[in-house]
Structure formats: C-alpha cells, structure tokens
C-alpha cells in the first residue's frame, strides 16, 4: 500500500522534473535568505533609531544599556512571536486549502480566527480569565468548533464551491460578531483590552507570550509538515485517495487538529490576522507547483517572512506611531483576494 502511494505521488525523475527540483531548491534558499533579511530588519528597525552595529553588538553581548534592553526585551520577543505566528498562519492556510480543495480558504475568511476570538472574549468577560496561557485553551475550543462548523456547512456537500465556503465562513463570522458585541456591551472594561487585541498586533505582547504558545505551535507545525504526502493524495479527490491507500477521514481529522492548534495558538497570541493564510500558499504554489510537501515547507519560511515584513512596514509607515500588523496584512492581502476572485473561473484545487 505504502509503496503504491509513493509511486503515484513521486514521479520518476526526468529532465524537466530535475529542472523543477532545482528551481524549488533555489527558491527555497532564496526564501530563507529573505526571511533572514526580514528578521534582521525587524530587530534593527523600530520607533527608536539604533545604529545597526550597536544592535549587532548588544544582541550578542547583553549589557545594561537602554539599547540592550530595547533589543532583548522588546524587539527580540516581538520578532520571535512574528516568526511563530507567521509560520502557524501560513501553514494553517495551506492545510485548510488542501482539506477543502479551495484556493480561497483561509483561517480569517473562513471564520476560524473569529471563533478563537469569540471564545477568548467570552473568557475575558465572563470567566475572569486574564492570563494568556488561559486564553490559549479557549482559543483552541473556539477554533476547533468553528472550523468544524464551516467545513460542515460549506465543504461537506458533493460539489462544494470555493465561494460557498467563503460565504459559510462569513455568515459564521457574522453570528460570532454578534456574540462578541453582546459581551462587549455588557462588559465595558473588557472592551478596552479587546480593541487592542482585535486589531491584530505584536506591539504589547511580552516575552512570555511566545514561550506559552510554543509547545502548541511546534506540535501543530510538525503535524502539518508530516501530513504533506497525505494532502497530496487527498488533492486527487476522495475516491482516488482511497485507491492509493490513503484514509481521507483520518487525514481530515489530523488536518483539522493541526489547523486548530495553529490558529488557536496564533490568534491567542496576536489577535485575529487576516489574509496571511491566503497569500502564503498562493505565493508558494507559484514557485513550486502543486506538491504539498513543498508548499508546506515554503509556508514555514514565507509565512514569517511576510508577516515580519508587514510588521516592519507597519512600524515605518506612520512614524512615530505604528500600524498594527493586522491592518497591514489586510491592506496587502485584500487586493490579492480581490484579484483572485476577478479571475474568470476559480480553479478548484
């Protein structure tokens, strides 16, 4: 069984395939290089101008200077959080697109992030949960319930169209939005915390945030990466997937688990961030084609690169204030969504 699967998925090497493999590796190295540049920028650029040489020096030799405190206590945690959240949302988007075979699937548009937010808001307002490690669990529950609901509503039919799934997501977002409003009207004091979190931002997250979500992120990322070959099989359609020895139901369950872990953790830490899960697989697919093993690998690199890039952009654009990263990604991502929808026919994956 296992051998059949491999034989179908991995085509025999020939000249065009070698060329493509070469292109994939070159692209991957380039993406990693871009990621490192963006990480460097994220550590070097901020509301307070610090010379690059100074940043470099205090990065490795921590001293008691203000510069050292800024780099170690503010910029480094923020950058790490960006890497984690970016990888999580990029992967979550990829897995969702593979599971639903929908090129528009994305945690934000399908309402999964909103589900996580709703659960967190309820926790803040009614259950008196105040710590981020408490948020995470509620975010998981919310993300899991919503993704299950969206898949059931928009994805489980015999001919689910990409557009219908998006509408299912939007309608669920609307219902959840009403829930959030009720909570906020009843609890004014929760509103202030909510509005800073809702916009999607890294700016006032402390160093512990990234550590708290780290275990969930690692499990989710590993699970998503391991699923690559199964997702390839699933992209053939359920019947063909079965005939090459894959188990569609098991793949969906594991995929859903990974999406839940990734979206829940990312949303609990950074607030709902839209469109990253749409843009990352799209960009990856342009470089590597339709092999999910490669798309997932690229998503781990491109997600953080895009998100950190957007964060740096947000810090630079409106000096001395800063744009929350969620706003920047929406402004970059919405045009992509519009462009994708303007195509004559959306090809199903």
């Amino acid at each position, binding site marked *: 069984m296992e051998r059949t699967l491999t034989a179908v998925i991995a085509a025999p090497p020939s000249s065009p395939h070698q060329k493509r493999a070469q292109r994939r590796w070159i692209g991957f190295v380039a993406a990693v290089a871009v990621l490192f540049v963006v990480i460097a920028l994220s550590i070097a650029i901020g509301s307070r101008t610090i010379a690059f040489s100074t940043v470099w020096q205090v990065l490795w030799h921590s001293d008691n200077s203000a510069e050292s405190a800024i780099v170690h206590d503010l910029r480094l945690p923020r950058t790490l959080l960006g890497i984690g959240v970016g990888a999580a949302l990029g992967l979550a988007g990829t897995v969702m697109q593979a599971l639903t075979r929908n090129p528009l699937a994305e945690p*934000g548009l399908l309402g999964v992030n909103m589900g996580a937010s709703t659960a967190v808001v309820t926790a803040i307002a009614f259950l008196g949960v105040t710590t981020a490690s408490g948020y995470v669990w509620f975010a998981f529950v919310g993300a899991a319930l919503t993704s299950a609901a969206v898949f059931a509503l928009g994805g489980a039919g015999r001919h689910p169209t990409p557009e219908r799934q998006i509408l299912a997501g939007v309608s669920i977002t609307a219902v959840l939005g009403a829930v959030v409003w009720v909570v906020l009207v009843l609890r004014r004091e929760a509103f202030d915390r909510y509005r800073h979190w809702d916009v999607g931002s890294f700016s006032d997250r402390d160093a512990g945030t990234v550590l708290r979500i780290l275990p969930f992120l690692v499990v989710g990322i590993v699970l998503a990466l391991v699923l690559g070959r199964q997702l390839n099989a699933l992209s053939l359609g359920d019947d063909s997937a079965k005939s090459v020895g894959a188990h569609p139901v098991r793949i969906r369950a594991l995929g859903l688990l990974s999406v839940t872990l990734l979206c829940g953790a990312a949303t609990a830490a950074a607030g709902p961030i839209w469109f990253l899960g749409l843009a990352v697989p799209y960009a990856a697919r342009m470089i590597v084609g339709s092999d999910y093993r490669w798309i997932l690998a690229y998503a781990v690199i491109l997600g953080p690169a895009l998100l950190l890039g957007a964060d740096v952009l947000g810090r630079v654009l409106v000096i001395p204030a800063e744009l929350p990263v969620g706003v920047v990604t929406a402004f970059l991502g919405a045009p992509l969504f519009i462009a994708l929808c*303007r195509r004559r026919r959306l090809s199903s994956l």
Partner: protein
Amino acid sequence: MRTVIRGAGLSVRVYPRALIVGVLLLLAALAVALVNLTTGDFPVPVADVLRSLAGKGDAGTDFIVYELRLPRVLVTLLVGAALGASGAVFQSLTRNPLGSPDFIGLTTGAASGALIVMLIAGGGGAQVGAGAIVGCVITAVVVYLLAFRRGVQPFRLVLMGIGVSALLEALNSYLIYRARLNEAIAAQVWLIGSVNGRGWTEVVIAAVTVVLLLPTVVYFGRHLKLLALGDEMAVLHGVPVERSRAILALAAVGLSAGATAAAGPIAFVALAAPPLAARLSRSPSAGILPAAMMGAALLSAGDWAAQNTLPDVDMPVGIITAALGGVYLTWLLFRERGARR
C-alpha cells in the same frame, strides 16, 4: 394571481395576496411600534399614548412620547423600510439571495465614512450621517467597478464586496484602536447599529431618504421581473435596461446609505426581509413594498427585543438583527446545500 384595474389611460396590476401581506405587515409594524411607545423605563398606558399622539395628552406624557420615544420608533420604522426595500432591489438585480447591502460591502463603507468623521474630523450628528452616505456611495462605485469585467457577474459582486469589506474593516478597527477609549466605545456602539437615543435629526434623514427614494424604487421596480428574465427579454418587452438598472441600483444604494446614516450599519435586515416577505406572499420574488413593510416590522420587533431581553441593559438593536440574521443565513446555506444533493 393578479387583478388588473384599468382606468383612464392608466392600468394598475394588483396582486391581492401580496397586497394583503403588505397591509398586514404594515399593521404589525405599527402595532409593535405602538408597544414600543408604551414600554420603557416609565411605562405609559396605550390610551395615554394614543391621546398624546392625537395632541390631547398631558405635558409629562407628551415629553416622554414626543421627545424620548417617538423619534426612536419612527427611525426604526423608516430605517427598517429603507433596508427592506434596498435589499429587495439588490437581491433582484443580482439574482442572488445573498446580494444584500451587507454583503456588497455598502454598510462597511458607510461605517468607514462615519468613523472617519467621528474619530478624525471630530464631527457629530448630521455630519456623521453625511460621512456615512459619502462612504457608502464611494464603496458602491468601487465594488461595482471591481466586479465589472465584461458585465457584472452577481456572485463576483458579492465576493468583491467581501474583499472590500475586509479592507475597510481593517481600517475601521485601526481607527478604533488609535482613538481614545471614550470615543472608541461611542464609535463601536455606532458600528453595531442602534436606534437608541435617536432624535429628530435622524428622523428627518431617514424620512427624506424613504420619501424620495422608495417611490422611485417602486416605480422602476416594475421592470425588475422582466430584468430577471434576462436582458434580451427585457429589451424585447420595451424596458430601457441599462437606465432602469442604473436608477434602481443608485436608489437602492441611497436607501441603504440613508438608513445607515440614521441608525448605523444594522446588519441583515436587508438580507432577511425580502425573502421572508416573498415567502408570506407565496410569490417567487417579493414585491418591493411588502419587503419594505417586512423590514419595518422586523426592525421594530428587533428593537423591542433589544430593550426587553436583558433587564437594565438597552442593547443596540444591531446585535439582535446580527444574531438572528446570522442564524438565518446559516440556515440558508444549509438548505441550499441540501437542495443540491
């Protein structure tokens, strides 16, 4: 079933069932409105309210009825009617039950316009309304242009609306994020859509909108059935296709803009009212007037629920409509899924 009444050079087609449904819905809306006039922090008996409305009440009741409750009740009725009519026109034009102003991004655009006035320019009252109208019209034009590609495909219009809404929602949440807390709370309450504390200014905005645009929509709405058969059929029957469609769309944008200016972006009334009215009148598509009456009845009932669901809390009516409308929309998608199997 229809009856044609012909007079001197004028003939009117009457659909008895639609007419009856429309009248009943109007009566229901007025009844709920009357109930809303009697309930509140200080209950007033129906008889006193009626006496006051007839101009024979005592000073205390007059104050409660005319200053506190009547503006709110009138805004609710007018905004509901405007939203219902606007939804009916958009749903017919796009031939899609999801083609309501909520989904084409119009309400979000209006909200952005209003927030810019409220939080950046520091305006209030009528200026906010003007901002909402400008924002709504600009968004309508942008979404239409984006969706236009060798003609406008209805579904693409909805998707473009979702994309543009997402963009504008990011802008809105940024505007709220950077504001001071008090202003932010006021803005958020406005964003939910509420008829709480509306005065005569808002009544005038809503009334002007409805009085000017509802007859326009109804007049050109007679072409909607033929437009639904396709452009060729409509042309064959002598309908000026492009002109009717443009006027209808503009008037519907105006209705939705005026409603949003008066009460904030109230979700889902425009989505739910027309199909519900159609269901009651047992016709495939609702007439515009029954849809408008349905909107008025729905929003009045929603406002009653908003005032009475939780003790001591006057919830914005937008919460009720969003919750119910979201459930309705979910049911719609669920049913469509079942139907295609």
